């Protein structure tokens, strides 16, 4: 790691002030992604502001049946929270589909949203990557793009966002609360992550000096909650394709209430056009939804398989919903 200085903040306002005061400063909470990248010198902050002690580690019910999740709530604690398990099952299932037990014990809610891509060309410092080094080019396009994006890509970047949690939060219409030296604001998760365009190095709507304080979940939707993750091994791997689904069941027929895909784009890919279109057989519902979702897909030769895999994963998720006993 490159040398850096380190200080602990004691309140959100102080953390934001500390960030604004030091160019090149970064927030550290769990550290599970940032320290990995610092060891590889892909990230080299001059200063770290530790936000573990700023009092954002609680989960609180809010008006109208929603939930306010503090920025430093650990992934394990969020997944295991009674109200999340009972009312937002898709979120619990997405969280436990990610990483390992050790990492989930440390990784935080805000850190999970802020994590960087696992594109091998972002990690491979000998390769050209516009996200790591703006203007250097993208070696992924002509390289091993097997795991990379098929939706919302640009000439500059085909990286995916690696989070499982964010895909479930997108299906649930979560709202990200942030604070900065210029005050507080709320960002719908739909607008939080950005598509690459010409500036893939800008990954979120967060402004310099702003920190995430909480994520708000609206009132529960009911229905059956499924998170189906397809990956190259049974556990502890990033998604090739994942499906966050809230569905309703009527006998042998299913209806999509909410649907978002992971592993296909630089942000969770919500599919509002396929929601609330009525009941049908799982195979038909999956085919119709995937047709809508994937008509704008622009895969490479190596990841064209994701188009069919996304449809099959959705079909499997709809069957999972049917087979849930509650």
């Amino acid at each position, binding site marked *: 790691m490159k040398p850096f200085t380190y200080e602990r903040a004691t309140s959100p306002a102080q953390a934001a002030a500390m960030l604004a005061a030091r160019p090149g400063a970064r927030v550290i909470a769990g550290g599970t992604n940032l320290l990995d990248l610092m060891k590889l010198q892909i990230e080299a902050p001059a200063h770290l502001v530790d936000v573990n002690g700023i009092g954002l580690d609680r989960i609180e019910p809010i008006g109208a049946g929603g939930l306010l999740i503090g920025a430093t709530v650990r992934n394990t604690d969020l997944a*295991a929270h009674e109200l999340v398990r009972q009312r937002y099952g898709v979120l619990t299932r997405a969280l436990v589909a990610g990483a390992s037990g050790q990492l989930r014990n440390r990784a935080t809610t805000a850190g999970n949203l802020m994590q960087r891509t696992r594109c091998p060309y972002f990690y491979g410092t000998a390769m050209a990557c516009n996200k790591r080094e703006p203007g250097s080019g993208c070696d992924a396009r002509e390289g091993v793009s097997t795991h990379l994006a098929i939706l919302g890509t640009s000439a500059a970047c085909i990286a995916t966002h690696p989070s499982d949690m964010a895909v479930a939060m997108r299906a649930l219409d979560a709202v990200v609360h942030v604070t900065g030296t210029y005050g507080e604001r709320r960002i719908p998760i739909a607008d939080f992550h950005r598509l690459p365009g010409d500036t893939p190095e800008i990954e979120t709507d967060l402004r310099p000096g702003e920190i995430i304080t909480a994520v708000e979940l609206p009132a529960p939707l009911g229905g059956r909650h499924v998170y189906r993750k397809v990956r190259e091994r049974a556990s*502890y791997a990033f998604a090739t394709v994942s499906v966050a689904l809230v569905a309703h069941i009527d006998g042998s027929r299913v209806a999509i209430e909410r649907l978002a895909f992971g592993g296909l784009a630089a942000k969770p890919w919500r599919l509002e056009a396929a929601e609330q279109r009525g009941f049908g057989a799982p195979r038909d519902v999956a085919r119709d939804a995937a047709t809508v979702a994937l008509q704008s897909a622009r895969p490479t030769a190596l990841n064209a398989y994701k188009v069919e895999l996304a449809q099959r994963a959705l079909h499997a998720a709809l069957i999972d919903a049917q087979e849930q006993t509650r």
Partner: protein
Amino acid sequence: MTTDVPGPKLSRREFNKTMVVGAAASAGSSWMAFAETSPADAQATSVNAMDVVFNVNGQTRRLLVDPRTTLLDALREHLGLTGTKKGCDHGQCGACTAIVDGKRINTCLSLAVMHEGSEVTTIEGLGSVDDLHPMQAAFIAHDGYQCGYCTPGQILSAVATLQEIGAGIPSAATVDVAQPPAATAEEIRERMSGNLCRCAAYPNIIAAITHVQKGRG
């Protein structure tokens, strides 16, 4: 030319017993001589060096560290607790697993300065040669290792896995996340996926953990 290897000759099983308890059999005094010229001293002179105090295996330890020092390196290089292993150093293998403030974490992906006031349990604090923790005894009884390098991390993770199931924390193997998880082999396998074993001793590791879980009733 022949080279004499000093020290006692150990069978594989005897050597691995030392891995299971994290003891370097004959390194006690020579370690301290090494420690005096270790990176610990070099880092203490860093312009950014910081004081940090945490508790390791029941003892309060005060360290002066460069902020770059991971908790793993603080344990191994500063405190001489080499039972906690460095495998990948990137949170992918689990060899560095320790229990910090009651939770298992990858010590390679945490800075020592982030652990002011923490309570850390390493393999050296779990049990001793004369008084093994039940999980250590079960790994020996079930031959839950071959080379032994991943074993301390496996054992700490296994102890925490049973605690997590007992606390009702769900996993990807939990069929109904609204209900408390059951301590099935599927649950144990899923929860241990952050600990890799290149010798592939997995069946015996699962057998050892299951043995301890059943012993609890």
